[in-house]
């Protein structure tokens, strides 16, 4: 999370919920006793729709739940996963916390920086990739790991990183299994 304020994001002009989103909005609002509680799910819905949250999106969410836009801005800027600016098509988040660091997260990060020719927080020129160092993603048993959009790639080596990047570049992302979870073997002691 970050407690510092976010820069004013680039604007795309006013937005409105589509008819199908309006149905989802109503469903979301029905889950909570107050309108304010819908702010996070609505920001998620908006981010799915418009990729990042700008002031117009915040205004739409504020109108939907009847609150001042500043309140939506406060929430949107508190949580790191609400994007306040566009990112590459693939957002690559490399975990750098202790368990990953113990088994080579730094090497993975350095390799990706070189391969993608970008630094931490950087966007590649072709608009495909954004690279971020992040903190523990609860995948420490299959470290080192990274998250690409919603997918976890685990037990990484520099070779598998190359395969994954090549897959993403060719538009055919590797459907690598989630080793920790999918190939789980229970070892009876």
């Amino acid at each position, binding site marked *: *999370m970050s407690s510092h304020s976010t820069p004013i994001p680039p604007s795309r002009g006013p937005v409105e919920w589509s008819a199908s989103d309006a149905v989802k909005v109503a469903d979301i609002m029905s889950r909570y006793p107050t309108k304010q509680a819908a702010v996070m799910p609505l920001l998620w819905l908006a981010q799915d729709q418009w990729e990042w949250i700008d002031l117009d999106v915040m205004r739409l969410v504020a109108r939907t739940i009847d609150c001042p836009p500043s309140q939506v801005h406060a929430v949107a800027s508190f949580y*790191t996963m609400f994007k306040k600016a566009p990112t590459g098509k693939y957002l690559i988040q490399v975990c750098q916390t202790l368990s990953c660091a113990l088994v080579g*997260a*730094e*090497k993975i990060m350095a390799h990706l920086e070189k391969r993608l020719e970008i630094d931490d927080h950087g966007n590649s020129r072709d608009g495909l990739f954004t690279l971020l160092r992040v903190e*523990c*993603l609860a995948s420490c048993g299959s*470290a080192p790991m990274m998250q690409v959009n919603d997918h976890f790639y685990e037990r990484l080596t520099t070779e598998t990183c190359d395969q994954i990047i090549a897959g993403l570049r060719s538009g055919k992302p590797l459907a690598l299994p989630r080793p*920790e979870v999918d190939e789980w073997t229970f070892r009876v002691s």
Partner: protein
Amino acid sequence: MDFPRILSGNWDKPNSHTLAVARSCGTYSRVEMALKKAPSELIQIVKDSGLRGRGGAGFPTGMKWSFVPGPEKRGNKPVYLLCNADESEPGTFKDRYCMWKDPHLMIEGMIIAAHAIGCKVGYVYIRGEFRYIYDRLWEAVHEARAAGLLGENILGTGVDFQLHIHLGAGAYICGEETALISSLEGEKGQPKLKPPFPAVEGAWHCPTIVNNVETLAAVPWIIQNGAAAYKALGTEKSPGTKLFSCSGHIRKPGVYEIPLGYPMKDLLEIECGGLLPGRKLKAVIPGGSSVPVMTPEEVYKCTMDYESISTVAGSYLGSGGFIVMDDTTDLVDALTNLLRFYAHESCGQCTPCREGCGWMYHILCRVRDNCATAEDLVTLKDLADNIHSKTICFFGASAAMPVQSFLLKFKGEFLARIEAASKGIPAGSSVTSPEQRVGA
């Protein structure tokens, strides 16, 4: 070792996440059993079982439930049940398995808990990075609703319980229960002063119980087999089984369910497969990054339960995130890595925590880079001592404890860096060989 696998018993069955497979394993059969019982009876069973919260604090679950004011005191206020699935404590990844492999077990536990505390609407607060699990949980909820296990008049018993899944958006602090409540309410996820405790005044100012995923998943077995059967596992004061997330320098990282009281040495050597060839044990963090670090001597003496870890090593079982570091680890680097985490995740409300975490991190960077003085170490310890117990939530202590314990138990490594600095030796030369860096 032979013991019932209460939490992970179904994980290796194909499609264990579907309602059909879950039901064939007996999941939801305990709902009928529980809904026929009076709420007070359910609370008593859980109290008698000695089940303690698996989210980190180890608070007795039945007792927590009993703090919810009865209908005569709370009037027409609803009661809320929140499942804490924020799982962001570094080194902890067990709830992720629970939800991915057996979401229906957790939902069954929530239905039973909800009945016990008189709750009609519950939420699972799951961290934003688990979006693929969030989707799976909704699928499970829809399946359970269609089967009449969630919603109105569950299985014709007249009991109602509606369950919703709420997706977080990347903030470690939202795992702290009052921050989780603020976040669910649609505010910034910042902790609040206690009291009032959530059980009395929580979400939307109503009585609220926050329980960890693993805690709730243990409930159905207890209802089915009784408190005595649960107490028969583990130790007198730490009954039952627990999931341990094992990571770091071990051959078989993963999640292991073991009865509490199991020797730590066996967990390391048997379940975790031991250390990598030719390596020696240097340090272990037994309960997630926030708890004090342990030396090898302590590891070999300890058993995996709340009491032993605290009496032998002055540490905590915490969330059960077992992080193993062998002799290739540079502990100054390791601690610096952890403090970067705390400096980044402080919510910023309390001055000691907001300023102190960043300050400790910067001092540690200097120590790591061989440019700190002996005075810096004094300041570092001072800062940690002054953050501990002086903040709104326990996060401050969580950042201070690693610093205090590393400095106490591995002081030599820190002093070596100060000495190197005084001789003008640049970082990474003679005091630390490159492969000794955490990131190597």
